[in-house]
């Protein structure tokens, strides 16, 4: 069962990365395509929390870094998607409330992820572009992701719900609520 779920996840990851470079290049805007892998990581964060999403982000990023047309310093997308997964996981309770907020989280995650990637390139001196061009690319990719998120998020959420262990579902929600409460209380104490 666990192996099957792992396989489903791996297949999804490969599908996202391959579709990004093969299928979407025909509809690319100035060469910019939607970040399918990033959307997958954000949905994982919304459904499973920051820890799981950070791990998935690392795997997805590494695949993006190493899979064929990539020719940048490996680890840059991995770093970006780890951060994206973790941050999206931290705001998951808000993101869960409605599709609109989930889509907005995807947009924010897209901005953060691509910016981290761009920034790491500037630091490493790897494949730099003028800042105005970089900004234009980042904005285009955010718009792409916002466009695709309403279609992808429900499907992926459903897939994650289906592949989740059976006995876990009810318990999970109870745990989340409990964490929510304790988290809120702690926050109140701090305040």
């Amino acid at each position, binding site marked *: 069962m666990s192996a099957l*779920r*792992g396989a489903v*996840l791996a297949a999804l990851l*490969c599908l996202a*990365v*391959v*579709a*990004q*470079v*093969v299928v*979407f*290049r025909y509809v690319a805007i*100035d*060469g*910019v*395509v939607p*970040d399918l892998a990033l959307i997958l990581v954000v949905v994982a964060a919304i459904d*499973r*929390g920051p*820890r*799981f999403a*950070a*791990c998935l982000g*690392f795997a997805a*990023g590494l*695949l*993006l*870094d*190493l*899979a*064929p*047309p*990539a*020719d*940048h310093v*490996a*680890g*840059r*997308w*991995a*770093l970006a998607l*780890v*951060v994206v997964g973790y941050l999206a996981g931290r705001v998951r309770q808000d993101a869960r409330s409605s599709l609109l907020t989930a889509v907005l989280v995807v947009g924010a995650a897209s901005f953060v992820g691509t910016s981290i*990637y*761009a920034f790491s390139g500037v630091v*490493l001196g790897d*494949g730099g*572009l003028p800042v105005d*061009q*970089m900004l*234009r*690319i*980042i904005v285009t*990719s955010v718009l792409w992701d916002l466009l695709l998120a309403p279609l992808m998020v429900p499907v992926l959420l459903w897939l994650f719900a289906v592949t989740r*262990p059976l006995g876990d579902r009810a318990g*999970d929600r109870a*745990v989340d609520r*409990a*964490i929510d409460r304790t*988290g809120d209380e702690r926050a109140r104490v701090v305040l």
Partner: protein
Amino acid sequence: MLRASGLLDRSRSRRSAGRATGGPTPDRRARRTFALLVLASLTIITLDARTGSHSPLDPARTAVGTLVGPMESATAAAFRPFTDVSGAFRTNQALRTEMSRLKAQNSALQARLAATPVDRARLAELDGITKSVGDTGYSMVAARVVAMGPMQSFSRTVTIDAGTSSGVRKDMTVLNSDGLVGRVVRATETTATVLLIVDTDSVVGGRLGTNLEIGFLRGRGSADNTGRLTLDLVDNSVVPSKDDVVVTWGSKNGVPYVAGIPIGRVESVVSSPRQSSRLAVIKPFVDFTALDVVAVVVPKSTQGDRPVLTAGAPK
């Protein structure tokens, strides 16, 4: 493994949620995992960036390429019939308009060809460059572009569906019917990664068609459809003229670029006051957004699983 740790995490979190104090909270565990993964990413970046051409990540790249490359080829092949869907919806009228436009363009081009002083000398010189390639020749292996790197990665690379099994190796010239496309930077058994000349990491030795002056062409990595190159001439006193053709001047044994491949045309000349040199902006002949069939220049003796084409290069 991810699942197992996830379950562990959940059971712990259930307990800690009950107790609310003591033991690692899920928050802390997530933070720890996050820190570890960030460190792992930074380690990989450092390893890959510091070691240059002999990166310890190369075996991993090859392994992933061997696995994902065929997936990309298969997906591209399956998806190819749909890429021309827009063509099916074009009306007769649109096609007729297109044809008359092309006819007009054709006659204009022919007129320009007759009018331009494309003298014999230039042709002879180009021929000379072609001959100097020597034994490398112009044997080619045809391939198709299956994947294009996203612009979010700020680099311009494509995957082609020919690899070492067809004789394609690192540092080989890639061109199409219009001109120079790029060079092979990495090859697996069935696929190869090509760095396009418009990428900011790409440097090509170029020669002006009219006065044979040499210089270096750097990609500008432009995000828009009109990728441009910058030509930096070795001799600063030379002013490139507009519409002059730039060809590769090639290097020893044709690695990584063979000589005499047309690259582009001089679009404008910019002189920077800071340096005394002049930069020429080159418009490449190749349309990089619509790459499909390309050819890789291979040595004559290449044996592979696909036919080696020998172009009509004078010997």
